[in-house]
């Protein structure tokens, strides 16, 4: 309420509101039913404490509880939550539905853990998680907001990558650079999934989940490539095993699919098509370099990282997201700084070196802050 009063006062001083309009707004806000935040806060605290108490009681006597009782109670809770979720879907409270849906998803995951523990089931964690993702995919499609699909797609990406890396590394002796194949392919799958799943109304929430992961996943891949190319490697195996060949083929097919998607999407302007095609090409070259390149000067992967980040920054110029553009420019600045320290490493440890390094950081950061808007406007003009 204090915020509204302060804001309306500022608007009135700027001539945006008259005194009478301000009074009407404040009067309207005053008449709204208030929310008893303090009461809700204490009630929530009470419920949490009771819940923690119940969990502590169960945990302390866990071994004494028979397996059948554990299983039956678990199924009763899951079934009860499912029924409650359905009941909420018939009411209009989307936030309540979403919260209970998320809790139900966590409960299903906990149930898989319980069954695994009770029956001493073997296997890798990713097998259980991928089965969980399969079971709960239709449920995630019913989400109204993005945090449930974000959680589900995050699990699928992380453990899908792990499953693929395990498939490649059949006997545990594979070169760590081959793990880049699933990492690279995962980003392409996210991009394709975010487009294809968007075509169908039922899977749009999943599409949103994949779409939100594209940028963070892309930055992680660029970081992984940068780190991988910074290491000297000895190959113990060549690219001849079946899983590796299959994975490389899948990766190539995915790259072609994304390229075709860029070329055939009618809504993209020719400038954007050129931008995304160049991004994909450099991404693919970076991937080949990361997997099979040896004894590469560190300036090459560093340059490719900067070019990729620059192209992603241009994408944010095109879609008019200035904050994301600023973030990418800052990351480019950081990468330049790392190059500086790599080149002048030993000098930077001296007193003079530290002073120069500090000045570089200050000047660099100031230049970036002052010129971000100018760079963005220039890029916008260039991409018109």
């Amino acid at each position: 309420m204090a915020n509204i009063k302060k804001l309306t006062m500022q608007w009135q001083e700027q001539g945006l509101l008259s005194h009478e309009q301000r009074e009407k707004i404040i009067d309207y806000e005053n008449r709204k039913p208030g929310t008893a935040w303090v009461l809700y806060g204490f009630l929530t605290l009470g419920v949490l404490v009771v819940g923690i108490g119940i969990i502590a009681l169960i945990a302390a006597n866990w071994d004494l509880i028979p397996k059948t009782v554990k299983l039956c109670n678990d199924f009763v809770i899951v079934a009860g939550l499912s029924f409650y979720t359905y009941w909420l879907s018939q009411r209009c409270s989307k936030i309540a539905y979403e919260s209970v849906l998320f809790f139900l998803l966590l409960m299903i995951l906990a149930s898989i853990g319980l069954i695994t523990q009770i029956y001493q089931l073997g296997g890798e964690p990713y097998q259980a998680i991928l089965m969980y993702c399969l079971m709960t995919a239709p449920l995630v499609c019913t989400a109204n907001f993005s945090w449930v699909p974000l959680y589900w797609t995050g699990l699928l990406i992380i453990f899908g990558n792990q499953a693929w890396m395990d498939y490649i590394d059949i006997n545990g002796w594979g070169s760590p650079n081959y793990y880049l194949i699933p990492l690279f392919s995962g980003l392409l799958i996210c991009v394709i999934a975010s487009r294809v799943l968007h075509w169908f109304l039922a899977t749009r929430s999943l599409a949103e989940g994949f779409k939100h992961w594209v940028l963070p996943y892309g930055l992680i891949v660029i970081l992984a490539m940068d780190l991988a190319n910074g290491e000297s490697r000895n190959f113990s195996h060549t690219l001849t095993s079946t899983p590796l060949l299959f994975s490389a083929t899948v990766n190539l097919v995915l790259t072609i699919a994304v390229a075709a998607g860029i070329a055939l999407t009618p809504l993209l302007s020719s400038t954007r098509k050129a931008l995304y095609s160049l991004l994909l090409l450099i991404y693919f070259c970076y991937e080949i370099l990361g997997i099979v390149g040896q004894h590469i000067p560190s300036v090459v992967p560093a340059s490719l990282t900067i070019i990729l980040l620059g192209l992603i920054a241009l994408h944010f110029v095109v879609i008019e997201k200035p904050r994301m553009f600023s973030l990418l420019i800052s990351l480019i600045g950081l990468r330049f700084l790392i190059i500086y320290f790599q080149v002048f490493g030993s000098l930077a440890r001296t007193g003079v070196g530290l002073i120069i390094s500090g000045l570089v950081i200050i000047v660099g950061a100031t230049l970036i802050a002052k010129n971000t808007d100018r760079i963005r406007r220039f890029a916008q003009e260039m991409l018109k």
Partner: protein
Amino acid sequence: MTKKKYGLIFALVLPIIGLLAMVINAQIRLWTGTTVVLPIEGYDPRSLLSGHYLAYRLVNTDNVCKSPTAAQANDVYLCLEQKNNQWVATTYLVRTLPQCTLYIKGKCERTNFMAGIERYYVPEQKARSLEAALRQHQGAIELQVDKHGKATVRDLVIVNPQDN
């Protein structure tokens, strides 16, 4: 009822069916097959994802994964024979179904033969004493093995329990 409601009911029921299928599958595996008890040796790592469990391996399987052929194979078969009323691991075959009475199917991960049975969840307060028993070679694992070589853990057996 609208299509959307049917869809939601299907989405809510599917995980319950999935969980039930897991339980039924695990229970069927325990009811069928042959019960064998094999000696084990092991250690107790902690894993954030898998909870508190004992990790071990079957005794006398050191040579299984040492050959280059076995090291790259995804299907390694460990033969089991009954001697003096006890089951013992005798030979192993790679990529070929053996003719022995009973066998466990697994694979080689680096130099270890793994059949998906190398983990047993234990109560936290008993973990240290069980670990000590395993280190003194007092442990055995009771398995249910089906005719396709799939082994399921039934119980952990300690010959001289130290936690009483």
